[in-house]
């Protein structure tokens, strides 16, 4: 539905006219609309954050417990038993840093890919830019990531690893992770509106993704020839970059980061376009 505005912000109540008509082909993203509904976005995110740990005993501690416990298991299995190398930092730290960001990806994709379906009542009864739903869901998952990052910082201090100016680079890598996860989730949530198969596919994809991403092992274990191909998985660049900045690993991250960034934006842009395409008749098919 393209809209033409004759006046600006409506809080001062200048009356504007919108035009509703069928749209065809690839409609524009109308990010301006999302911005106009930013307060709703905020309230939806707040709802998801508040509801996430309601009626749990440990509450937000779960955000810490999951990556820490997994890191312990990884350290025992891959670090001690399999003796996998860890780019010159203690394996526990290597695994924790990777898991903090991988868990953000997997939990946000897991919840966001079903966000439209679980908000069916909203989507079929009220108008708002539908992009608000997955973005709000991502923001809620991002809060967990921030908590887990705090734990990572504590662990870094305890182990005496990393730190320094490089840590500032972790911020763009976290945002890159957000972009990758949002792009994937936009695709999946739009598909899930019509095909509930997504509910069954996502856990499998995420499990598979964990092995296709350098979480438990370093990229350096893979033959140099395959690095570019490997980095087509955008989470490769994200995780290598995040470790490089937080733990100060001595690896060459230029190639994976470059490849992964390009892939990330392709996924995000195509995901957003596809989402908009589905959005037009979303209320009819969901």
């Amino acid at each position: 539905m393209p809209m033409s505005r004759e006046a600006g912000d409506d809080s001062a109540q200048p009356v504007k006219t919108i035009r509703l008509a069928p749209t065809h082909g690839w409609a524009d993203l109308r990010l301006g609309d999302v911005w106009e509904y930013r307060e709703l976005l905020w309230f939806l995110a707040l709802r998801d954050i508040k509801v996430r740990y309601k009626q749990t005993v440990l509450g937000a501690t779960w955000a810490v417990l999951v990556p820490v416990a997994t890191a312990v298991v990884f350290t025992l299995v891959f670090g001690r038993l399999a003796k996998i190398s860890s780019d010159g930092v203690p394996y526990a730290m290597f695994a924790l840093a990777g898991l903090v960001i991988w868990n953000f990806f997997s939990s946000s994709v897991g919840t966001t890919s079903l966000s439209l379906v679980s908000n069916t009542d909203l989507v079929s009864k009220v108008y708002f830019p539908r992009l608000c739903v997955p973005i709000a869901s991502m923001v809620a998952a991002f809060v967990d990531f921030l908590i887990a990052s705090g734990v990572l910082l504590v662990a870094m201090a305890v182990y005496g690893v990393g730190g320094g100016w490089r840590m500032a680079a972790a911020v763009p890598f976290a945002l890159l992770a957000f972009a990758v996860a949002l792009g994937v989730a936009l695709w999946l949530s739009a598909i899930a509106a019509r095909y509930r198969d997504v509910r069954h596919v996502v856990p499998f994809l995420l499990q598979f993704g964990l092995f296709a991403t350098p979480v438990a092992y370093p990229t350096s274990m893979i033959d140099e020839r395959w690095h570019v191909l490997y980095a087509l998985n955008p989470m490769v660049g994200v995780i290598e970059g995040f470790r490089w900045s937080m733990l100060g690993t001595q690896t060459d991250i230029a190639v994976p980061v470059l490849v992964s960034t390009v892939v990330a934006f392709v996924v995000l842009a195509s995901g957003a376009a596809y989402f908009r395409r589905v959005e037009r008749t979303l209320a009819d098919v969901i």
Partner: protein
Amino acid sequence: MSSPRAIHTEALTKQYRIGVRGYGHDTLRERITQLASEPVRRLTGRRTPPPEGSILTALDDVSLDIEQGEVVGIIGNNGAGKSTLLKVLSRITEPTSGSAEITGRVGSLLEVGTGFHPELTGRENIYLNGAILGMRRAEIRRKFDEIVAFADLERFLETPVKRYSSGMTVRLAFSVAAHLQTEILIVDEVLAVGDTTFQRKCLGRMGEVANEGRTVLFVSHNMSIIQSLCQRGIFMTQGRVVEDGPIDGVVGDYLRSLETLVQQDLLERTDRRGWHRIMVSGVDVRRGDGANPATGDPARFTVTTTGLQPGTTCRITVLSHLGQPVCRMESGNSSPADHTLAAGAADEPAQFVCDVDSLMLLPGRYRVDVQLRGTHQIEDELESALVFDVEPGLVSGRPVPSDVSGAGVVLMDHRWTVPAL
């Protein structure tokens, strides 16, 4: 004297592809084959063309002009396109063709309490629901006390909504909605919920909104509410606007159309809801001796169905001619006095019979909505399946006059003790 336009639609049309959904899939195997083949067909772009009759035109060439400040009631049977029109105008779904121009902010209440989250407190839900309806945070903050006072829930603000009774939830939800300050308000039969005191309060509020010069589009089956709120009526049938004019005339024509509608064979009517594995094929009400029902006499309601599904129950709702529900009788709500009667095969016609010892309806015209339910789903629902007249009669020997205007709709058997000189 024409005021500026609020809504203008031009040949607005909305079609749905209904396919076989809801009707077919009698076996799990069929459903699985369809599920397995559909994505492949879609991905390869080799979509089979929709078979004949699989396109449902919910809105058909609707052109309307609504001026600012008009309060318009939209009337029609199930499937007439009222809700689709509201959905398109509230931007929930795009039209298939045609266009609409809307001047002013639109607030739509297609359901009470959309987006309420049971785990959040009353306060949190007010903000969330307000934002969902399109209110600004500052606006909600300004109206917060008013909203809470209207809902009369000051003491429960910090309680999660899941601990609220359903009445409390509705009250909270409606009062958020009632404080929505948009130029255009779109309301779909939301008043059918809540207790009567609160319903009256809401009606009062709706009336105020209407008097504030805001544009209101209102859908209801209750003609007395529509008549008291709206000046203009739009009567829709099968997606088309068939009449548009002053409310009283439109309501009158709508009621007359119901009478012709019930002349039609019930099985041929398309304004029904449900799975339709079994359908209502006939509804009737008679006095014991076969004559027309009369006040105070025994009456027998008979609902004939095309077959039976396990656990089928029948629900009869009697409404006044204007659409105000009067009473409801449900076979699922059983009493020791009920009987069962062995029916034939599952695909043979069956009858639900409901006997009333003494019909306590005042003389006048009534209509009947019928619903058949299986264990988990509605099989068939037909509104205005029957229109009938109740004739004057005797209640415990007391005559009931035929002119009962202002006397309500029901009567109670009673006995006086009067002082005498």
